[in-house]
């Protein structure tokens, strides 16, 4: 039986070699994994000077089953912050900066924010994800609509712990307008951080 199998295998191999050019050994080309954003960084810079507060998100295995690692946002009360958001794909080497792409395609992208009430005095409320709150956007696309890579925030005078801060990046090709909302288009990013505000 064993030798019969071997003869057949040899026969099979011979026949396959007869198909010249069909039995290749090519490996798929290395593709730049542009689908994935796996690293997002929030940088809160206090208006009055002082060191910036950084919160990160990193999903080291991208589409694998491993869960991401987040660091908490630690702000001070009654402070005005400028928030800058950067995002990257670190699965590629060198890492690809997705922020540039979002900026260039500003008329197709918008960031939306949601947060626990009582964390910020301006904007007040709970943000503009699924509700009608306003956000203090400080950047614009070519049509004059906000993008959200840069925003300003003022914390309340009350300290709080364990609040939520959610960032939602929507891709809205041909949809984005002055009236488009967080429920339009596709989700590129949807991350919720824990936010703590202390004296």
């Amino acid at each position, binding site marked *: 039986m064993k030798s019969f199998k071997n003869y057949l295998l040899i026969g099979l191999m011979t026949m*396959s070699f007869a198909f010249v050019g069909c039995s290749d050994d*090519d490996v*798929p080309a290395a*593709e730049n994994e542009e689908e994935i954003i796996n690293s997002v960084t929030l940088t809160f810079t206090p208006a009055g000077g002082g060191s910036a507060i950084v919160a990160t998100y990193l999903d080291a295995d991208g*589409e694998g089953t*491993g869960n991401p690692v987040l660091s908490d946002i630690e702000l001070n009360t009654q402070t005005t912050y400028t928030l800058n958001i950067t995002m990257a794909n670190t699965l590629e080497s060198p890492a690809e900066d997705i922020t540039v792409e979002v900026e260039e395609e500003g008329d197709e992208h918008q960031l939306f924010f949601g947060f626990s009430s009582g964390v910020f005095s301006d904007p007040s409320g709970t943000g503009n994800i699924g509700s009608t709150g306003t956000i203090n956007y400080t950047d614009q696309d070519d049509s004059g609509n906000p993008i959200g890579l840069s925003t300003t925030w003022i914390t309340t005078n009350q300290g709080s712990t364990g609040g939520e801060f959610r960032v939602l990046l929507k891709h809205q090709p041909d949809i984005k307008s002055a009236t488009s909302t967080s429920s339009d288009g596709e989700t590129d990013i949807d991350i919720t951080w824990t936010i703590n505000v202390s004296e």
Partner: protein
Amino acid sequence: MMRYFLFVSLLVTSMSGFSQDTPCDRSIKGQVIDIDTNEPLPFATVKIVGTSLGAVSNEEGSFLITGICEDEVDLEIRFVGYKTLTHHHDFHHNTPIIYMAADETLLESVVVEQELNAHELKTLEPINIKVDQLASLGTSAGDLFSQSAGVSTLKTGQNIVKPVVHGLHSNRVLIINNGVRHSYQSWGAEHGVEIDASQIDRIQLIKGASTVRYGSDALGGVILVNAPESSFNTKLNGEANVGFQSNGRSLSGEISLNQGFERAAWIATASATKQGDLNAPDYQLTNTGKEEISLTAGAKFHFPIVDLKVYVSHFEQTLGILRGSVSDNLAGLAEAIRSPIPSNTKSFSYEINNPRQETIHDLLKLESALFLGEQQFDFQYALQRNQRKEFDVRRGTNNERPAINLNLMTHTIDIDWDHPSKGLLAGTLGAQFINQNNDNRPGTNTIPFVPNYNTNTLGLFAIESLEKESLTYEAGIRFDLMNMNVRGRDSNNDIYRDNLNYQNFTFTLGLLKEWPNFSIRTNIGTAWRAPNINELYSFGKHQSVFEFGLWRYELFPSNDSISTQNVLTNDDREVESERGLKWIGTINYHSNDWKVEFTPYVNWINNYFFLRPYGITETVRGTFPYFIHDQTDAIYTGLDLNIQKMWNESFSADFKLAYVYAKDRGNDQRFVGIPPLNIQLSLEKRIGNFVFEFYPEFEASQSLTPSVIAPENFESNADLPFDRSGTFDFVDSPDAFLLMNASIKYTKKNLSIKLSGENLLNSRYRRYTDNIRYYADDLGTNVGLAASYVF
């Protein structure tokens, strides 16, 4: 190849030595059949032109002419009210089967000498369907297959349709296209069959495990699809068909030309379809248009000992998928299921955006049959090229790039030998060789979902049957050897390779007992298939789920964790071929006005591949459930029933019922997507040149379903809200439905016109076996108008 031709020419030379001085002891046996009804035609006259010899067909349509002196003769077949036919016959060929077409039909009378795949198993009842050219315009091939009880469809909307035989589909149903094992990316449930419906003339369904005859993958059954054949001895003729359908505002056209000489004939066809957005009763189904173009050409040559055939076809499709079926994450999926109208619904358009699929299927086939008295050799070579591009909804300029871009080249060689009968014993020995090369084409900007691979498969089989009076015993055995070479890239773009070997023995055993009005068939057979490439290696997001192939995950029961870091091999996790054992029986009863066919079956499958939910993963886009490929044991059992009643020449009824019961034996669970009980009725009345048909369809609600967990009940960072061993569904199975359909057909001389209406009551319904059921209703009323002109 060269050696084969040498062999042929040697035989031809040696044959010519003893073909002289023939005494007048030749005879012709044949059968006359009505092409429309497939019933035998008694009292047809068969004459040998230029002689006084002739015969009249008997009750079974059979005739016998004896005392012929010549090697080659012209047969003339006549029957009142039918189109007269001349056929050039020689004695090396098989029994001619003459299909007569009535004067008032558009069909031509034809002779079939050597049926494609004629060496089928006798103890498995084949179901023959002659496709109505007016019904096939603009539809999907998958829908044409489901005209028989026991064959249903698995859909992703109206455009992507796969046949389901006794509950099994994709790599468990084998499609033989024009005699060639059809090669496409069959592993995906959302990959259509890539055969042009308008090019299908005849369909043959074999619902038993006929792996022995056709090779691996035929666990559920085999579907043989044949294009129209050219006929000899016909002047240049043709057919033009045009069709319009209100739902989708589609327009289809088809033209075919045929010319036949004494020893050569050719046929060429071209067809095209353009369809816009379809609509459900209450809303438009945005992005469900399609475009199809198909071209075919065939030629055949008929010599005393050898028949040669060449066939080429090209088919390209662009298929839109409902825009509202795309969701980003679990929250989006919950929203898509909840919303009364699918998201992104727009007004009617012919535009096809993402998500969409673009496929091309090309076929070149060379076939020869060698007739040597009592024996016959068949040799066939086929080349298939299949391209598949899938465009997903992606970020920015990536929308113009396909997310999946595969090129599959397949060479197949089939050699069959019908050996001379030894007493009561007759049989076929055969060999099959398949070489496949699947390549990812670069430029997708995403790591390939499946790796590159090459497979070489060799199959050897023998089928013998013994006919003793009304009893036929049949037995067959097959050995398959498969080698698969895999090269892929993991999520870090690092290369992995593997070389895999599979081998399997399969057998079939059957019995056929015939009485005058009654026959019983029983057959038991095994079938197997090697794991699909995606079942071993898939990694990441495909459509809106994350899935991991058997060799892309590791489970650690000690701390209940999973890792997808490494690419495994068979040493790490042994993956065996899926193996099925199917018993099928058919009881046939026919009298002058009744025809009953009852088919029970049991399919016992071990190492059954399936996808099971395992956990929830957080990605930057939100929360997703993920699925792992695994193996279990399964059973599929059920019955098909078909009853036909003819009250008189002009009034008849056809009743079809199909029921499947399936279970995951390993986990004592249900599977998703098992076809529910389906009943179809057709009442047909002929009045003059008109044929009226009323054909309602009823489908029950599937009650044997796994548990339901709505997407909103999943929480991030939480445990799965269900038992991992089996599976689950996001929504409950849809309600039962009853659809009203009717048509009127008018035929006069060369022209035939058909007006049809489907879902006449504009009922809201969803099919359990349509993946779009989560998001939208099925189609509303459709009115079709089609015309056919023969010239």
